């Protein structure tokens, strides 16, 4: 059966520089598949600039891949027309990373919720629409009468972010791209919001691409995780395995660097390598090589393929060359 969402060898290059001369590859050869029958929360983790948001935009059809194809229900997103397109729009939603920019400064914040309700005819009456908005706002811990009717610049960052999440709750899509949805709310609310995301999956069968660099929350809310480094998947798999026993040196570094809310636990045991000019020096090899404590000579020559360590765990590192080489595709496993 066709997966809900499928990414086949997707790459994205940006043109950079004033004259668009510099080609910058933000994402390279990513494969991914999501089944509708098995609603999943996939965490996309990685350092900043590793291409997480780019991946999200590609899934949303807001960017066109330079290579490869993004399929929604078996059809390439870029070619969707008419009813298919409407359906795609309705079913694939997002919480964007920057809660400041998603608001049109001209409108009061209500606009963000009103429009989809109106466009997707989610409510039969204005009263009902209002009701839905209020419910969703309350679900993310906002007081409707306090935030509605205000302009975005009059709200705090966390308030705005929560409105964006509330919007997703109203819409109940099939697939939600949540790009750092809770980066600006406090711990207690964060728990509550993540809880409601998880309930979306459980109660409404919504799959979620949870883009974050906060591995603790990823660990708590996601089923599986995809770790990106410089535009490439370095490790992916079931969240329990990856977080508990990270295999890729970068994932290990990441997990090691989590600031645990525990004064007794020191922050990071591994040293941080300098990254000065790293990109330039990589050439054709593994992008992490310059920082990798266990880099080997051939790491600099060729990009390591994905090796399958377990049915639900792949890693792109020559350290595991001995293991069975997997087809670079976790989805078709």
């Amino acid at each position, binding site marked *: 059966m066709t997966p809900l969402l499928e990414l086949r060898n997707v790459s994205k290059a940006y043109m*950079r520089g004033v004259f668009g001369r510099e080609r910058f590859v933000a994402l390279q050869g990513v494969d991914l598949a999501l089944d509708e029958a098995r609603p999943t929360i996939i965490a996309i983790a990685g*350092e*900043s*600039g590793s291409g997480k*948001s780019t991946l999200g935009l590609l899934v949303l059809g807001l960017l066109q891949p330079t290579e490869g194809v993004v399929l929604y229900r078996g059809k390439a997103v870029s070619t969707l027309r008419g009813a298919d397109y409407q359906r795609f729009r309705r079913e694939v939603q997002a919480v964007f*990373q*920057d*809660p*400041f*920019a998603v608001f049109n400064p001209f409108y009061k914040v209500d606009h963000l919720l009103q429009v989809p309700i109106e466009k997707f005819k989610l409510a039969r009456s204005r009263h009902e629409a209002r009701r839905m908005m209020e419910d969703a706002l309350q679900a993310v*811990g906002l*007081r409707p009468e*306090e935030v509605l009717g*205000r302009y975005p610049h*009059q709200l*705090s*960052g*966390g*308030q705005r*972010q*929560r409105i964006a999440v509330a919007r997703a709750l109203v819409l109940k899509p099939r697939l939600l791209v949540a790009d*750092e949805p809770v*980066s*600006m*709310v*406090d*711990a*207690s*609310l*964060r*728990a*509550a919001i*993540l*809880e409601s995301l*998880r309930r979306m999956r459980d109660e409404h069968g919504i799959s979620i691409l949870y883009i974050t*660099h*906060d*591995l*603790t*929350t990823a*660990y*708590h*809310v996601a089923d599986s995780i995809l770790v990106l480094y410089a535009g490439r998947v370095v490790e992916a798999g079931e969240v*329990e395995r990856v977080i508990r026993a990270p295999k890729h040196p970068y994932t290990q570094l*990441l997990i090691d*660097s*989590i*600031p*645990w*809310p*525990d*004064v*007794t636990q*020191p*922050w*990071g045991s591994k040293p*941080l390598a300098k990254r*000065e*000019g*790293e990109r330039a020096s990589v050439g054709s090899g593994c992008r992490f090589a310059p920082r990798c404590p266990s880099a080997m000579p051939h790491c600099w020559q060729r990009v390591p393929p994905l090796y399958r360590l377990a049915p639900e765990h792949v890693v792109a590192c020559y350290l595991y060359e001995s293991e069975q080489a997997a087809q670079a595709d976790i989805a078709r496993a």
Partner: protein
Amino acid sequence: MTLQESPVLRVRDLRVTYYTDAGRVTAVNGVSFDLAAGERLGLVGESGCGKSTLALALMRMIKPPGRIESGSAVVRTEHGEMDLLALDEESMRKARLSVISYIPQGAMNALNPVLRVGQQMLDALQAHAPHLSRAEMRARAEAALASVELPKDVFDRYPHELSGGMKQRVCIAIGILLSPRVIIADEPTSALDVVVQRQVMETLQRVQEQLGAALILIGHDMGLMAQVTHRVAVMYAGQFVEVSPVQAMFTQPLHPYTQALIQSLPRLDNRGVFRSLPGVAPSLLRLPSGCVFHPRCAQVMEVCRREPPPAVHTADARFVLCHLYGDDENVAPRATLTTSPQEVRR
């Protein structure tokens, strides 16, 4: 942790109000605290409780319809003391970035899209250290970029060519550019991955320690607070409800809100369990009577509904705003703590 005798920043009874269509929003409601040189103070609290407003008030950057209603914020510099809230415009301008700097929340839009990153850094240097030569300025800017782990070429890039995290780091680099006495970092790392977070925080710490500057770290990430700060102030509805040394905060939170916060932290050992505080923060437009937290408080008492809680300063230099702790400085907590005290190593 060595705290010097006289604080580098002394804030007293700071009040900020926004005059909105719906009414007056008292975003900062009588906040007082001291900050020692070299100290790192965490500032946590529910979103919208007034953290950024407090920071902006210290920067004197509250814009209409907001207004600083009262208070003082005295900074001690080598040239003596100055009350930020009483300075004239020009002196305040000079004080910004060189005496007190602010790394904004949502750094995404804080950079001018049409100027190169480097230029925006040079601008800052030009404004405060015009005696430097161009080469020196450039060297300093590049050093600052390097200290936040940004490659050199960022200097010549435009903001839109950077990822969110990179932009945030640029803002941090700008914030430490002039070695200020007080650095306010408003969720500086919320957009950063943990590795970079660590790097950035280490940098911030390093710079701050070198300068002997005080750091106010605003954020939600209790983990970060635990790892970075000396003291944590918990803010609720415009007020400081608790200020405690970080160990004490995590091991023996006093205020019921703090307790709830600590409890909702995710742990590695109980995956998939979310614990959060029920209810919604009060509207700053109409604060509840008595203690602002009472509607959500698990240990609410009759007095809480009626009377505002007393400010309690405990012997171990903690501060709490709660009826549970009497009004005498030396009174021991009346209530039992939900987490049992632990031995703290720091």
